[in-house]
């Protein structure tokens, strides 16, 4: 949704210049490597609720979770009686971590070769509010100013070593349906779709030229490499997927037909009118990362109800903030609003965690409280979906990333 360029993130960076130093201090090896979170109500996002449960964290990973888990000797025990525990949340569509000027390469309409990771700033002021709110992983990406604006990155919002925070350097190819404006081609929706079709055709031809060269025993000079076409080729080989900015039902259908034609994996983002074509989406096993539902934008009741509608149709649904459209700190209330509009609580939590992780192809690492996964855990003082409930602690890779008491909030 982001096309407007502004400079606010850059300007506020100096105010938070001390963040990295703080981060290093918190992740220091002084904390014992085994932590036991005891006594809370655990919502794992993949199984039944565990009351009076225990989570054992060892070396930044979840070593054990359950109700009758023995606490190892020497573990640092943290009593969480009366608290609610959910997985670190995964915001599947955000723009934090980069200067707004770096989000859209407006000079071109097609830039699949561009990578958000090349714009990420470890000191960006957007990370901390997200981490403090329990958003521990984001799919942060380029904007919607181009038909294809490039590859998103999947990144944790906290951690001393920025390279280690990156789960995927190249995590989903952004395309943006819909006209780009009266003075900027393509200025009609059919022209956008035609441009995408041409992009996929060129990528096939590109793949064919390489295949021919391979099949011919790699004789003679290889075909010239094209970074953009290599990116699209990875999508066509299912090594990557398409994350598509799309609002209108007509544009959704155009995309689904492109998928039918070229066979790529697809997640619809924003997907304002997806509820109108829920069955078409579901039968193609296309995922939806739906509109940010939390109060900044007034939306029709049908749109508010769309997480429920799409879940009923069998679609894997995840939430997003589109930060700065909705600030990361209100991410969990996007799920809460979906509950208000009929989505079961556990499905809403999945949309904030495991579903978002699956769509981002990082569910082997994050998105649930399960043995072997990264110890990204959020502790709250009440039901996660209530507005009055506050986040008390956030752990990322087993390190305490946020402690409300310590921050005096």
């Amino acid at each position: 949704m982001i096309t407007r360029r502004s400079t606010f993130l850059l300007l506020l960076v100096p105010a938070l210049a001390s963040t990295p130093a703080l981060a290093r201090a918190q992740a220091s090896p002084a904390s014992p490597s085994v932590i036991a979170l005891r006594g809370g109500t655990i919502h794992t996002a993949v199984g039944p609720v565990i009351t009076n449960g225990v989570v054992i964290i060892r070396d930044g990973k979840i070593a054990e979770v359950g109700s009758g888990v023995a606490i190892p000797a020497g573990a640092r025990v943290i009593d969480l009686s009366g608290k609610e525990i959910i997985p670190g949340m995964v915001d599947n569509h955000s723009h934090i971590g980069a200067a707004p000027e770096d989000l859209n390469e407006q000079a071109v309409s097609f830039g699949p070769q561009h990578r958000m990771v090349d714009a990420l700033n470890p000191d960006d002021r957007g990370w901390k509010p997200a981490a403090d709110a329990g958003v521990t992983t984001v799919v942060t990406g380029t904007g919607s100013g181009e038909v294809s604006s490039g590859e998103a990155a999947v990144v944790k919002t906290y951690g001393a070593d920025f390279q280690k925070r990156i789960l995927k350097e190249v995590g989903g190819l952004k395309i943006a349906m819909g006209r780009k404006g009266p003075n900027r081609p393509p200025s009609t929706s059919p022209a956008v779709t035609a441009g995408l079709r041409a992009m996929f055709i060129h990528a096939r031809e590109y793949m064919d030229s390489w295949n021919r060269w391979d099949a011919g025993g790699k004789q003679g000079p290889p075909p010239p490499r094209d970074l953009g076409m290599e990116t699209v080729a990875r999508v066509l080989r299912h090594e990557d997927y398409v994350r598509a900015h799309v609002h209108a039902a007509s544009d959704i259908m155009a995309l689904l037909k492109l998928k039918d034609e070229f066979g790529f994996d697809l997640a619809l983002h924003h997907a304002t009118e997806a509820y109108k074509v829920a069955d078409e989406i579901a039968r193609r096993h296309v995922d939806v990362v739906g509109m940010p539902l939390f109060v900044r934008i007034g939306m029709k009741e049908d749109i508010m109800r769309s997480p429920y509608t799409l879940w009923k149709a069998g679609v894997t649904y995840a939430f997003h903030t589109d930060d700065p459209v909705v600030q990361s700190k209100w991410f969990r209330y996007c799920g809460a609003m979906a509950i208000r509009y009929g989505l079961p609580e556990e499905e809403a939590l999945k949309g904030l965690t495991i579903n978002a992780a699956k769509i981002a192809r990082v569910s082997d690492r994050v998105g649930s409280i399960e043995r072997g996964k990264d110890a990204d855990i959020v502790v709250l003082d009440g039901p996660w979906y209530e507005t009055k409930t506050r986040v008390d602690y956030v752990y990322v890779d087993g390190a305490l990333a946020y402690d409300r008491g310590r921050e005096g909030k």
Partner: protein
Amino acid sequence: MITGRGLGVAGRGLLLSLAILLPNTTYGQDAPNGSRAPRAVAIRGATVLTMAGPALRNATVLIRNGKIAGVGTNLTIPSDASVVEASGKYVMPGLIDAMTYFGIDAQDLAEAADPITPELRIIDAYDPTGMGFVSGAGPLRASELLIGGVTAQYVGPGDATIVSGQGAVVKTAGPNLSSITVKEPAAMDMSVGSGPTKTFRAKNRTPNTHPAVMSLLRQSLIRAEEYDRAWQLYNSRPDSAKSRATPPKRDPGMDALVKVLHRQMPARIQANTVTDIRGAMHLAEEFNFLLIINGGAQAYQMKDELAAKKIPVVLGPISHPFISGDEIPDLKEYPAPDERNAGWLRQAGVPIAIASYSHGLGGLAQPVTGKWLLIDASLAAGYGLPDDEVLRAITLYPAQILGVADRLGSIETGKDADVIVLDGPPLSIKTWVESVYVGGELVYQRGAGNAVLAGEPKR
């Protein structure tokens, strides 16, 4: 504040009487049973949050002729009253959104040809038949706002100029424009924030800077003082002298500013930073006008000064305090928000309201965020504002700040019967507004399941 445009109390009473006499054109005809609304309604058995005292368990609210006729736990229900069973539910006053631009075409929000336009009146652009309102024949209903339990709102000109004009307090349902107008003009809207500097920088005209904004505003108020003195001088002359003298030239804008100088109408000044809030407070002191701060994102840094002078703050949304017409506000124009602002201000004794500042947000979004007023305000409960104060910040306090507390803002005998029934505790995200009464008429009822509304056209 009775004006040619608003019919005032007498006119409104007349219209309601007509509504009862003429069932085919009434407002009550849309009651779910299709019959005309009874003269008395008793909402029985609910927890009543009157806003004027402690919560009343298992209480009755009695409505008669559009007014609250009684509220209490031992109320005798008159035999002619239609009884609404509400046990297990919550009843509270209709919500009041103390600052919106809702019902105004975006193009009518800024007369940006001139930074100072006190003569403009937003009621002249107010269109309660478009946008989220039900259009077409019949009673006016801002359906999208009624879903959220909002029964009255302040609607003002935009913040794109220094003095943008006069706002109005209107209800979100009623038979016609006159009847929904509660107070007009209700305040003079001004901005010393980034709105005017942005607008006129883009036009390469003054004011480009905050000092220029302040000096232009000060100069206008001085002009209004001079204008006032000229008229006072003229009026003080004996009639014989008057006939020979030329009266001062009438200026409707100056007339309106004189009302501000005479404290007959407050000035609402949009000011978010400490600098702007301080500037607005200095002006109020210098010219002795009634000041209301709009926005007040950094007001907590001035809380003691604001409390001492009893200056109210109409806060922006707790979730997104960047009150801006832009789809994505440029945050460099706004101070870093702190969700504890509302709690700190109340604790210091500053009168506050929490408002939506609803704007049209472009093609994507309907121009409605007011329907989330309650949910947005409920966030403040997690950040130090006591639960009952959260509810007062969207009912009684805005009524007081807007000068309409004689009619709106609490469930007390004699006030307008603008009440909402909720299916659970008001601060839970799972709670829905079940029904809304405005002027004693049932104007909204939530349908079965998650369906839209009984009696509402599906759009």
